[in-house]
């Protein structure tokens, strides 16, 4: 017997390797550059994401199995990876001031913050390419665990800790449910590999009770991650409490990666059982559209509003999976890209306004923005109109594409549900636009300089320092932060560009859908 060295395709794995190396470099860079940590670490992480994005583009068009079939290199996985990397590239400048030293004199924490962010991106890249139940579960956790920490990373804010713990509990509940479902699918089919499961399910297991229980539990677990309606209660709370750049990352990148694996798992591994899961997912999508849009109507915090709007948008995107056709997958990938651009533009504006006005992320903070800060008002307006699906924006093209896919797959009623959801959503998106352009600016709040009195037995973590509170609550008016404005404008510009000239993005998305064509009807 001779030993055969396994064939390792380093070219196909190169984005994963680049990200892993980048995480190590960022951590080490954070340790060895105490004084200029922010600059060193940001440059290192931006270089990492740029290299990873370049390698993904280089590998575009390759279709092969990696690491003994554990990963699948194809356009769908690379599309998910590119969206996650784009989100990280925008969030790194957005978090320029976020994880700053919690008190004067203590060590800055950019190294840890960005290393965690990149770990989460690594989880997303792996998840989007996962082709095995084990890889699916491990990469989902690699994506989630750093996010739990990032949500709770503003340890001085009670809300941040609360959101971190809430996300941890709900996220782990989702993971455990998913794991139990995966165990049943393994039990029914006898394999953890997607294509082997497909063959097993296809040869007479479509109505096997083990497989059916597994499908239900796995769909529930994934629905927790992408905040589909009955499992969405954590979303607004966590979005509101987490530091805003983390919310932005969570909102777009998690959805992109989880939807990529959702589509691959259901269309490839469980494709033969399509008649069993299709109606269930259709109902989930409709419920999600209704609940998300109605929930958003009464929100006064913009982050909560975007949380509920994310629930509704997840419902729209689930329609792409329900269709179980190449057109549906194309529409889903297109919408994921459009959703990323629109949401990142909106969150970038929230990051700036949260710092400038005393109203946090409440709608009041955005009143009169059109007159005072047109450079911020325009990206926010474009993002809101695109999320509402107005023509000449990428959001409109995405909805059109999804409705077309739904009608094509004989799910016309879901197309109608998307249209009705869009109409309801105008009410709250336009409320933000009206606040920006039609109201006078709200009186700035006086900074709370006093802070809490020092008390006996006070711990350094618990007592906010008055000087720091005053410094953060009263920034100089009209601060121009190019690091945030430029991404906001780029994202808003891209939203308009792909709304007017959608063909490049449509081509890109149809490559991704094409990767699954052999498995689709």
């Amino acid at each position, binding site marked *: 017997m001779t030993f055969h060295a396994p064939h390792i395709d380093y070219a196909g794995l190169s984005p994963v390797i680049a990200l892993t190396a980048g995480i190590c470099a960022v951590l080490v860079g954070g340790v060895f550059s105490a004084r200029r940590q922010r600059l060193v670490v940001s440059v290192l992480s931006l270089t990492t994401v740029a290299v990873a994005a370049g390698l993904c583009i280089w590998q575009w068009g390759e279709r092969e199995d990696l690491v003994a079939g554990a990963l699948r290199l194809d356009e769908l996985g690379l599309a998910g990876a590119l969206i996650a990397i784009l989100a990280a590239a925008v969030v790194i400048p957005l978090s320029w001031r976020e994880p700053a030293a919690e008190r004067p004199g203590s060590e800055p924490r950019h190294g840890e913050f960005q290393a965690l962010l990149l770990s989460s991106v690594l989880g997303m890249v792996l998840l989007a390419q996962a082709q095995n139940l084990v890889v699916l579960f491990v990469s989902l956790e690699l994506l989630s665990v750093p996010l739990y920490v990032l949500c709770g990373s503003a340890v001085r804010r009670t809300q941040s*800790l609360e959101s971190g*713990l809430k996300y941890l509990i709900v996220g782990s*509940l989702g993971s455990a449910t998913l794991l139990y479902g995966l165990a049943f699918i393994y*039990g029914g089919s006898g394999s953890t590999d997607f294509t082997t499961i497909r063959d097993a399910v296809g040869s007479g297991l479509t109505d096997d009770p083990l497989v059916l229980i597994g499908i239900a539990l796995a769909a529930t677990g994934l629905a927790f991650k992408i905040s589909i309606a009955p499992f969405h209660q954590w979303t607004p709370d966590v979005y509101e*409490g987490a530091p805003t750049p983390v919310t932005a990352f969570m909102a777009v990148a998690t959805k992109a990666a989880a939807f990529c694996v959702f589509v691959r798992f259901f269309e490839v591994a469980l494709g033969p059982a399509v008649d069993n899961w299709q109606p269930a997912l259709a109902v989930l999508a409709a419920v999600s559209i209704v609940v998300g849009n109605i929930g958003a109507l*009464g929100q006064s915090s913009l982050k909560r509003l975007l949380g509920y709007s994310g629930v509704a948008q997840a419902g729209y995107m689930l329609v792409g999976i329900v269709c179980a056709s190449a057109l549906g997958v194309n529409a889903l990938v297109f919408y994921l890209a459009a959703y990323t651009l629109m949401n990142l533009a909106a969150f970038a504006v929230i990051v700036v306004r949260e710092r400038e006005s005393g109203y946090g992320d409440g709608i009041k903070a955005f009143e009169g923005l059109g007159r005072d800060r047109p450079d911020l008002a325009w990206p926010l307006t474009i993002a809101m109109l695109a999320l509402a699906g107005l023509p000449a924006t990428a959001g409109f093209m995405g909805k059109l594409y999804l409705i077309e896919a739904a009608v094509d797959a004989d799910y016309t009623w879901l197309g109608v549900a998307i249209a009705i959801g869009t109409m309801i959503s105008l009410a709250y998106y336009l409320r933000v636009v009206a606040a920006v352009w039609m109201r006078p600016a709200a009186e700035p709040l006086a900074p709370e300089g006093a802070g809490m009195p020092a008390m006996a037995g006070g*711990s350094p973590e*618990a007592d906010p320092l008055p000087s720091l509170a005053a410094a953060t609550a009263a920034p100089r008016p009209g601060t121009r932060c190019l690091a945030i404005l430029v991404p906001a404008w780029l994202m808003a510009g891209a939203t308009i560009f792909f709304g007017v000239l959608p063909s490049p993005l449509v081509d890109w998305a149809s490559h991704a859908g094409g990767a699954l064509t052999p498995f689709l009807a």
Partner: protein
Amino acid sequence: MDVTWYVVLSAVLFAIGAGGVLIRRSPLVILLCLELMLNAGNLALVAFSRAHGNEEGQVFALIVMVVAACEVVVGLGLIVAMFRRRLPLNVDEMRGLRG
């Protein structure tokens, strides 16, 4: 090998864990219940692995143990951070975030 009883036991464990997450108020007990749910999954994986006669399920179960440990570490870290800020360790009293 008949796996029915192993699967039934794992289903009972999963239900106890899920029930505990939903009704208990202490975050520490909730973490314990989450572990119970993950271990129910492990038991099912190992039982199915034995039934099918391949090792994929056992490998999966081993990896799940590592992941479970990571989750607990992060959860306990967050709980310690809350404890040091003298926040109530009771999930019913975490009402700072609501709209």
